[in-house]
């Protein structure tokens, strides 16, 4: 495993724009290095936001981290990009099952077809659970987990046509059936773009905006400490930050820039490059710990990336 990770890392270092990030992220996931796997997958998706398999891998990483909501979001994105993506259907069936939506899981898996042995096995488990609930009222635990579902490793198609590095079938262990609301991304409706980041912000003192390469607001809003919307002014002032950061890093040979964090008297402002040359900007009050600001930035970036893939 370590050799495989090293080899894939070397391949990715040689060609950062390749799709090698997918088998690398999955190998890291299987090795239990979930934080690193997440970073590799997110960085890869910045370059390749329309690759369904990449969203599938990111979903598995989220699932391993116990974040079913984000896993579901990623599998939904994979299905939007490729409606025939069986692994994504399987993953969503798993999420539905874990949330206790057995009927929905059954419908989803049945619609995916039983050509894939993993889907057929999962469907059998769900139907068994449905029958058990009908008889005894209780849903059997530990009957449907992704490890049982993704029975066959799914090869990742590489640009040269080869099939490199398989996706392992191990994901999370089945646990308690929980029910939680599914996050709805705003539809590509301009009037709702201003609320894009509302679900990922934790408090009234946090604000986020997506700015394009020309310094124009794409989505979200920047509210200052007085409650005034200053999105347009801030976006204009930040125009060109990406290119300057890139130039600085090129001179230093430190690789691509990943984030810029600015601490000021009253606020902490963080930004990170997003797809299509855009910039995600998150601001919080000075009381927010700096480490938390970076987590918020990651969440906002994930949301922006998914949204951009839908509207662009």
């Amino acid at each position: 495993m370590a050799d495989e990770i090293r080899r894939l890392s070397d391949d990715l270092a040689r060609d950062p724009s390749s799709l090698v990030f997918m088998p690398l992220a999955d190998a890291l996931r299987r090795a239990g290095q979930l934080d690193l796997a997440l970073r590799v997958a997110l960085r890869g998706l910045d370059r390749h936001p329309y690759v369904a398999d990449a969203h599938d891998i990111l979903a598995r990483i989220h699932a391993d981290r116990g974040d079913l909501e984000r896993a579901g979001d990623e599998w939904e994105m994979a299905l939007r990009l490729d409606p025939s993506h069986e692994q994504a259907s399987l993953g969503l069936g798993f999420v539905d099952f874990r949330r206790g939506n057995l009927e929905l899981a059954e419908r989803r898996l049945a619609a995916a077809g039983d050509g894939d042995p993993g889907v057929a096995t999962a469907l059998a488990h769900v139907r068994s659970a449905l029958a058990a609930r009908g008889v005894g009222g209780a849903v059997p635990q530990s009957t449907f987990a992704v490890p049982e579902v993704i029975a066959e490793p799914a090869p990742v198609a590489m640009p040269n046509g080869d099939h490199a590095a398989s996706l392992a079938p191990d994901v999370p262990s089945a646990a308690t059936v929980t029910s939680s609301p599914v996050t709805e991304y705003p539809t590509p409706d301009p009037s709702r773009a201003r609320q894009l980041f509302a679900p990922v912000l934790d408090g009234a003192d946090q604000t986020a905006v997506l700015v394009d390469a020309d310094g124009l607001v794409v989505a979200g809003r920047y509210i200052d400490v007085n409650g005034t919307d200053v999105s347009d002014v801030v976006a204009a002032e930040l125009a060109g930050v990406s290119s300057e950061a890139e130039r600085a890093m090129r001179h230093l040979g430190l690789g691509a820039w990943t984030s810029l964090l600015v601490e000021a008297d009253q606020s902490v402002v963080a930004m990170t490059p997003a797809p299509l040359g855009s910039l995600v900007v998150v601001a919080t009050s000075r009381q927010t710990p700096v480490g938390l600001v970076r987590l918020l930035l990651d969440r906002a970036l994930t949301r922006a990336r998914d949204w951009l893939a839908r509207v662009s």
Partner: protein
Amino acid sequence: VTKSPYAELLAVLSRHRGVVGSFVVSERDGISIDSNVQIGVHADAVAALAASLHRKARLACGAAGCGQVTFLRLDAERGGICAAGRDDLVLVTISEARANIGLLRVEMMRAAKALT
């Protein structure tokens, strides 16, 4: 040879683990006033770019009503740049990924208060 008033300060910062260079630069024109860098670092170019980034951050923070910028950190895959300013002067460090950013941040913010 006369040492600049910043030589000792820059030497202290450059001794931090992973720090490959430190500068005092004018934010207005991006000219390096003093530096302590390892061989191979493009000191003048990086100083100018860091000053420009600091200026942009200051203007954006001004527009957003955030107050004065106290610290700026640009992260990259294998390291990054930190900057702390006072008036027109900006203290800049270049570091590799192994640097202890928390410690460097505290040291730079303390040192920036003494910049004149």
